[in-house]
């Protein structure tokens, strides 16, 4: 299990390849990547604030839950903070399990919990200024699945 919180970009291809390499016990690897999306053509950048110390702890706890609940062979969470341009990768998760259903479910669980339980806050920078992204009810509702 590996948790990374950093302000610099990460190499998605290299991380995904290293995670999947030689998983002869797993059979199934799922990755999810979140990218700064230019919602209506007006986004200039995204700023992500976090809570140093708590962030790593919260992500470790969420990943640990996923590991034991789906008997994962491994899990990876990388999340950036600071300023990100449109098209840049915000974060990724990866899961390795024996069966694909478990790898998919564990990755979705990681995302759902990370969204609503890890201390990150996004601010969108547009030509009109900066605005904090509001939490969506559907993100909180997603937790009820688990």
């Amino acid at each position, binding site marked *: 299990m590996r948790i990374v919180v950093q302000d610099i970009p990460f190499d998605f291809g290299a991380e995904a390849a290293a995670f999947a390499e030689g998983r002869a016990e797993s059979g199934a690897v799922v990755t999810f990547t*979140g990218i700064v999306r230019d919602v209506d053509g007006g986004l200039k950048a995204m700023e*992500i*604030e*976090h*809570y140093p*110390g*708590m962030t790593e*702890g*919260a992500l470790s706890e969420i990943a640990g839950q996923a590991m034991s609940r789906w008997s994962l062979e491994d899990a990876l969470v990388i*999340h950036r903070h600071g300023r990100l341009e449109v098209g840049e990768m*915000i*974060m990724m998760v990866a899961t390795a399990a024996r069966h694909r259903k478990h790898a998919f479910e564990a990755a979705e669980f990681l*995302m759902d919990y*990370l*969204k*609503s*339980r*890890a*201390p*990150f*806050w*996004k*601010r969108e920078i547009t030509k009109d200024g900066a605005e*904090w*992204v*509001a*939490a969506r009810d559907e*993100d*909180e509702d997603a937790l009820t699945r688990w």
Partner: protein
Amino acid sequence: MDVLYFAWVRERIGIPREAVETKASTVMDLVDELRGREERYAAAFADISALRVAVDQQLTDFDTPLAGAREVAFFPPMTGG
């Protein structure tokens, strides 16, 4: 006790963290103390249903006791991922 503020809570109060001398027995008692200080605190804590709280870096509720707590953080609902 260290009190931390993040995102728009930090902006509204104007500082990221401060040391607070308090005998508040729960998070809610601390909120009431802070509200009484100045308008900017009252504004930040006007609607606590829009806020989340962590005590010693664990997400928790507003009725959590503060006995032994070293760090309390207030922030809006998270929006990572």
